[in-house]
């Protein structure tokens, strides 16, 4: 799963668009989703999905698979809104919540709209492209450096972990729950020791290239397109307006 989103992003059609453009589009709509009624939310979900599938040509199977990841949580949480608990005269009453359906639908719609924005961004913008942007948001250099090293290494560790798990499985370390827990603990320890060793060697590797203490990132080669960013913001305003005028519709 780690590789799913990241690998695709590097090959996506819109990879070479400036990350700020994609952030303006996805981020603008994401923020709007908190302030717009149901009609606006459906519009956001529809628009982002269409842009993702038809514009950026993200494969439908991939898009729906990733969108399905937060679904379990969203649905379970929304289902809790349908039910109401109360405690009267020593008894626990469980009943249907008043206005519960409306709240649940609103919640699911907002979560889906927001999730689609986030997923659109991560499927079209590889990590190596959005990380340098963080400095522009005044995230401290020490944190961005740490993120860079983390990102670089998590694939090394994931690969190592998968090898270790396969080796354990080959030695039948996965037969019972108890066995699996034990195997996981041992694998974790092994991975950790190696990660400490790797840390030391990475440090030496960086020093060998005259690392002075701050990782300077290469900025994105192209400049962000102002028309596209303005266009995205305009789109947000249009959807906000539609949401506003349809606010009094039933179930809006």
């Amino acid at each position: 799963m780690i590789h799913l989103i990241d690998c695709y992003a590097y090959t996506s059609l819109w990879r070479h668009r400036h990350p700020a453009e994609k952030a303006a589009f996805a981020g603008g709509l994401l923020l709007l989703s908190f302030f717009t009624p149901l009609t606006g939310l459906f519009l956001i979900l529809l628009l982002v999905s269409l842009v993702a599938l038809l514009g950026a040509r993200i494969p439908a199977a991939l898009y729906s698979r990733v969108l399905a990841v937060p679904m379990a949580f969203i649905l379970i949480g929304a289902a809790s809104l349908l039910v109401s608990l109360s405690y009267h005269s020593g008894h626990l009453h469980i009943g249907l919540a008043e206005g519960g359906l409306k709240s649940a639908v609103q919640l699911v719609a907002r979560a889906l709209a927001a999730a689609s924005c986030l997923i659109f961004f991560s499927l079209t913008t590889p990590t190596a492209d959005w990380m340098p942007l963080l400095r522009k948001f005044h995230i401290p250099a020490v944190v961005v450096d740490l993120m860079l090293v983390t990102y670089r290494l998590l694939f090394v560790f994931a690969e190592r972990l998968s090898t270790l798990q396969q080796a354990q499985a080959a030695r039948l370390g996965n037969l019972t729950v108890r066995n699996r827990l034990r195997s996981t603990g041992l694998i974790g320890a092994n991975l950790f020791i190696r990660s400490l060793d790797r840390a030391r060697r990475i440090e030496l590797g960086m020093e060998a290239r005259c690392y002075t203490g701050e990782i300077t990132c290469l900025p994105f080669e192209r400049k962000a397109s102002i028309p596209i960013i303005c266009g995205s913001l305009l789109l947000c305003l249009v959807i906000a307006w539609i949401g506003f005028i349809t606010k009094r519709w039933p179930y809006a």
Partner: protein
Amino acid sequence: MHIMEGYLPVAHAAGWWVVSLPFMAAGVRSLKRIIMDHPSARALLGTSSAFVFVLSALKLPSVTGSSSHPTGTGLGAILFGPSVMAVLGSIVLLFQALLLAHGGLTTLGANAFSMAIVGPWVAFGLFHGLRRCRVSFSFSAFLATTLGNLATYVCTSAQLALAFPDAASGFAGSFVKFLAVFAITQIPIALAEGIITVILLNTLRSYNPEELRGLDVLPKGGLST
């Protein structure tokens, strides 16, 4: 247990960001101090957060049959210390949101509060408190990790309850609802993670390679207890 993107209303999402930021800022100050004193700690911290991330992407066997993921925060708190975990945990959460569609950016503040702040502090406090009471290493680690995880789950349920109070019984009723709904998955994960952490830490202790001593640069970190 990550709160997914867009789940919390804007006021709550922003509110939890405001609450978590001071802790993150303190963590960053702590990091800067560590790196200034020990430049070699930089790579160590990067590998630590990569390690926590990969651990959290593991699939644990679950009693209910479905698979669930550990948080790695209890382990992280014991090995790296809780102040640093505020930042490492947040970095892990950011990557989880963007690389795994797990959690979100607006909800990162809330998730960081329960997973990178409350969880680690509870685990850390319990671990050292129990050790001081001369409880065995294994049992301390197990209890600290398990209860740290449970603290995270309780905190997340409280965050959800605050955002969605029950129509009839307000916060209290909603809190009970969310606790009940997520208990089925969260309690077994907490127990499993506790067991795994004990096995992991004990294996590390028996190794005692030179590298483990590198952890002592992290304030309150390391396995020297």
